[in-house]
């Protein structure tokens, strides 16, 4: 993110600071999305269809965010989380409507990528909890994409 900021700052010398900040915020979430999609790539070959819609934002270290999503019994889902901050450590976990951990044991976490796998036992709403566990940045952009088959 620092690199992008430096590049953007050089190019934006004559732009209003507010506009530059807006562009930066958009760009960074998009960057995070590209990493989330990178994590999804191997699964596409296994027949998962990745949605175009995604969630994104920024979090401080040790902060969490919840996403609520409708899932259907009979499908299988993966949620992939990514950030452009390479030294960040992020995680994603899935809970059912009662707050019980509902993900499969092959869910994983590796530095600035993480993924959670669920084969829903019931149709309904689930909570997907994204967290920035560690990060050298004050705010870390994140993006969450999902796929199903």
């Amino acid at each position, binding site marked *: 993110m620092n690199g992008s900021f430096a590049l953007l700052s050089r190019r934006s010398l004559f732009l209003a600071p507010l506009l530059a900040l807006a562009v930066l915020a958009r760009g960074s979430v*998009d*960057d995070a*999305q*590209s990493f989330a*999609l*990178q*994590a999804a*790539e*191997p699964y596409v070959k296994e027949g998962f*269809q*990745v*949605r*175009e*819609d*995604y*969630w994104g*934002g920024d979090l401080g270290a040790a902060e969490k*965010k*919840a*996403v*609520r*999503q*409708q899932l*259907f*019994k*009979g*499908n299988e889902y993966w949620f992939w989380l990514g950030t452009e901050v390479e030294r960040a*450590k992020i*995680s994603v*976990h899935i*809970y059912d*409507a*009662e*707050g*019980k*951990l509902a993900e499969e044991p*092959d*869910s*994983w*976490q*590796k530095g600035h*990528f993480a993924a959670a796998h669920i084969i829903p036992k*019931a*149709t*309904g*709403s689930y*909570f997907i*909890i994204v967290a920035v*566990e560690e990060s050298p940045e004050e705010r870390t952009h994140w993006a969450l994409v*999902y796929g*199903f*088959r």
Partner: protein
Amino acid sequence: MIQFRNIFRLNGVAAFGFSIVAVAAPVPQRIDVQKVSTTVQNVVVPRPDEVFGALNKLGGVNWKEYVRTDRGSNFTERPRIALLLGSVIADGFIAVQAEDTPAVKEIGQRVQSLAERINVKSSITQHAKAIIEGADKKRWDNVRKELDRTQNEVQKAMDELHDEKLSQLVSLGGWLRGTEVLTAVVNKNFKEEGAELLHQPDLLMHFQGQLQEMPEFKTQTPLIDQIHGALVEVKPLIGSTQKISPEAVRKINEITTRLDSAIVTKQ
């Protein structure tokens, strides 16, 4: 937003070598749902084929019965065009389930024409072409992906034009058509597991909340108010923890059929 297709290009053939790693920190087995609910982000409305796929796994569905290619009415009110566009895109997913090439191609053209009428055609032209090409080559997964991209691009263009409410109506139109077909299929051959796919209380609340914020559309387009009222009727039928009965499925089918018919027909 960086498109998925571009990501593949960026990555080239360098396969991303993920090794599955054990989770370092212990994962809490439970969370306090009440606490979490206060900071929850917006839902992403499921694609119609998410539910159709789940339905298919319960037994063969004759999707051809549900294919619709009527051109529908030509509306001038933007909220009505947005609802219709969502419904037509959902029809595209149904035609893909049925692997009906002529229907998919016709729907691709219809989507372009509707997008033109709300000034977002340029954002979807390439996807509409890809839908038609994919149908010709019977690459159904590609067509599904392009239908998703089409809807996403239309909604993104609307958001950029500060037409977020129209964008929400596109999703609502698609959800209503998808639910109409889901209930029709389950109604025809009732299975509890099929009826369970209707258990979508948060989505219903999501749409109700959005419609609440559209008083100007309700005045301009009475259909929006009718849909809002109908969702209130649907909520108790699919929102409880009880199993969804055949009667409830039938009732939801009646409601969504009535609404979808109003979406495609000039009143």
